[in-house]
């Protein structure tokens, strides 16, 4: 513990003026060693005043005036009296940076911080190896660990990973980024030693399918697996499939991002019997086929599906529609998913709560699909439409049928105008949060909004040229308790203003791509039936490579654009 109690008696410390303390009350505290707050400070002062002469008060006043600001040896600090668990509780409210500084205050703080620290993020360069034993002696209750290595440095290898896993037996969540030197031996040991590991997230690692398999073969408690940009995946004849291994019955969430060989993961997805959440972002492969292969058991459990920039069409959506308990669906930039696919989802997934669609302005999804959702999915709570052009027909249906619709976001739509806002205002009674971005809405729409949506709590309006500060003011003054977040664009500003809006950037920067799709699909405009779907699939197999290439190029291009804009734009 920190300071030891002062054993000097009260009256003598009162007289000892050179021994001062910014807070004179502390000096006079009389403490016994076992009880924490025995006697109030003021108490002892009064006692001692009473026992001394009538100049007692003067003496105290003089002592205060006589302040000597050197720290005092035998004047204990009160915070040392706080039990360790209370000190640890205080530390909980501090970020890692502050905790670092606390660890340097004194030995006791070092110890309490180390023992109460549950989350740690380390710079995983190879040099850290020698420090691993002492680091994990100090931090002995880590349950969430992140090891991150930057691109330019050599990362830790298997030896370090084994050491760490032996010392963090209670690890529940583990994240590795850029640790390219880690191979299958390390991953196997990690799973063997950390028996409670529930979540693994790895990004930019190189241990390929072998590494994942070595890990999964022993990870009997794993519930969540997230893999991004994994290297070392072989393909073609040498392709090694990834299976769920020991986690077959526990794995609930699979998230795959930017994998150039998505096919390897098919058997993983299909083998996870308790799968609840499936998220696929920009992975190559024919995902229609994978989705169609989902087993009957899995179908019953699947609640959440995210599909972004994938090769997936209405066939895949039809397959997903068998998941009768589906609650959350995100379809982002999947131009081969059309109204027909959305309708098939609507017809069977009656429990749908959250729906996000980024139509990429390709107009493959619009009124027809949304009307189907409105009619069949009464539980809808959250709807996000980006680059989709619904008219008041579907908007009207959605707002009147979906009685639980609380959160609505409409972005980059050419058809959402004042009439549509007015429709929302009058019919959408449950609405609490509304976000409108880049739509042809004007101040009139704001007025309409002010008069409707009785439960509205928050409104965000961005990049809507027609909305001026007048409209904002009207809204604010008429709806006092409403939180209004508006940015007003001056008439002269170009469309792509604002570096913070990644969305608009991406769409702006990649306008080339959607029109390519438009051309292709215009030529292939056939009603979706089983015969044509296969021919469509053939075509898409060809363009799959193209998509992959384009996707990555445009992703890089838009990212660079975003970074450079954020550098130049102070916003």
């Amino acid at each position: 513990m920190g300071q030891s109690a002062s054993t000097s008696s009260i009256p003598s410390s009162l007289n000892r003026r050179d021994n001062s303390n910014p807070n004179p009350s502390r000096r006079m505290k009389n403490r016994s060693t076992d009880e924490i707050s025995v006697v109030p400070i003021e108490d002892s002062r009064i006692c001692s005043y009473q026992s001394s002469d009538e100049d007692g008060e003067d003496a105290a006043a003089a002592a205060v005036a006589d302040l000597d600001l050197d720290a005092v040896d035998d004047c204990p600090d009160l915070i040392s009296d706080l039990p360790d668990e209370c000190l640890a509780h205080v530390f909980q409210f501090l970020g890692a940076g502050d905790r670092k500084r606390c660890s340097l205050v004194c030995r006791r703080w070092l110890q309490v911080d180390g023992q109460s620290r549950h989350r740690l993020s380390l710079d995983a360069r190879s040099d850290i190896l020698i420090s691993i034993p002492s680091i994990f002696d100090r931090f002995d209750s880590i349950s969430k660990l992140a090891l991150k290595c930057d691109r330019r440095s050599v990362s830790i290898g298997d030896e370090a990973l084994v050491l760490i896993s032996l010392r963090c037996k209670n690890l529940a969540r583990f994240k590795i980024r850029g640790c390219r030197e880690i191979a299958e031996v390390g991953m196997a040991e990690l799973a063997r030693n950390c028996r409670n590991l529930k979540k693994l997230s790895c990004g930019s690692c190189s241990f390929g399918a072998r590494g994942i398999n070595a890990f999964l073969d022993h990870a009997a408690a794993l519930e969540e697996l997230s893999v991004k940009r994994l290297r070392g995946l072989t393909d073609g004849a040498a392709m090694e499939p990834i299976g769920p291994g020991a986690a077959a019955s526990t794995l609930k969430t699979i998230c795959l991002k930017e994998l150039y060989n998505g096919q390897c993961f098919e058997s993983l997805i299909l083998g996870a019997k308790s799968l609840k959440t499936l998220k696929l972002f920009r992975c190559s492969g024919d995902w229609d086929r994978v989705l169609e292969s989902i087993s009957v058991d899995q179908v019953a459990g699947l609640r959440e599906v995210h599909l972004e920039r994938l090769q997936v069409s209405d066939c895949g959506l039809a397959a997903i529609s068998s998941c009768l308990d589906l609650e959350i669906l995100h379809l982002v930039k999947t131009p081969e998913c059309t109204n027909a696919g959305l309708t098939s989802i609507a017809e069977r997934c009656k429990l749908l709560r959250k729906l996000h669609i980024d139509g990429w302005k390709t107009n493959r999804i619009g009124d027809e699909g949304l009307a189907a959702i409105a009619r069949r999915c009464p539980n809808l709570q959250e709807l996000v439409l980006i680059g989709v052009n619904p008219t008041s027909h579907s908007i009207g249906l959605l707002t009147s049928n979906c009685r639980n619709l609380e959160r609505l976001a409409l972005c980059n739509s050419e058809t959402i105008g004042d009439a549509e806002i007015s429709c929302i205002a009058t019919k959408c009674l449950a609405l609490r949060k509304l976000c409108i971005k880049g739509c042809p809405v004007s101040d009139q729409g704001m007025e309409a909004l002010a008069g409707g949506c009785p439960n509205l709590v928050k409104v965000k309006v961005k990049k809507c040229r027609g909305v001026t500060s007048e409209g904002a003011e009207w809204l604010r003054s008429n709806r006092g308790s409403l939180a209004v977040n508006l940015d007003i664009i001056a008439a002269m500003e170009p469309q792509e203003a604002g570096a913070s809006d990644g969305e608009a950037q991406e769409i702006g920067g990649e306008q080339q791509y959607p029109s390519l799709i438009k051309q292709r699909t215009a030529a292939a405009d056939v009603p979706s039936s089983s015969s044509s779907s296969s021919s469509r699939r053939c075509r898409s197999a060809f363009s799959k490579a193209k998509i992959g290439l384009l996707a990555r190029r445009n992703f890089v291009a838009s990212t660079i654009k975003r970074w450079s804009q954020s550098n130049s734009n102070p916003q």
Partner: protein
Amino acid sequence: MASTSKSASAAAGSSSSSAAASSSSSSAAAAASSSSTVASSSSSATAAASSSAVASSSSSKVIVLMSMEGERFEVEDYVARESKIISNMMEDDCANNDIPVPNVMASILSKIIEWCKKHAEIKEDNNHSNEEKEKELRSWDKEFVDLDTDTLYYLVVAANYLDINGLLDLLCQKVADMIKGKNPEQIREIFNIKNDFTPEEEEAIRKENSWAFESA
């Protein structure tokens, strides 16, 4: 904000309400008053003065807490329930007699009761929306926790002992706010802590710390 007159009564061991009432803590004037007023309307007038256990015929039951100095505080049961320890005792039917809280001073206990009362009352309030209630509690809490550091520490220990989560979080957040953004030397100064590291030890810790990212 130290309440000097209050402590005089505590030292003397009496439970006179006058000394308590003259306590100078700003917002706590009402709550700092002893036994008779804390239980407010529900208990009958005689209950306050009696020393026997109070299981009155009033609608809500009254719990009696006894501070370190022996001062009795009557608290309505829905207020006392804010403390998990006490609420467990109530469930186990062990709360019928005076409950001693031997390591908590009367002045601290009364502040604790003040907090519990406010929060319990707001919870029961059906006339305002949740947002309004939260807003009210937040601003009330902010004022409540504007205390000298000594009182803060005593409250932390007591809230921890009585297992009152909301209060403990509030207090610890306040102490944490005193620490945020400060370097080790400044922190030592605020809390008057002695640096017991050798320079070598300090260097070793700094080196080790450099391996950890600031955003965990």
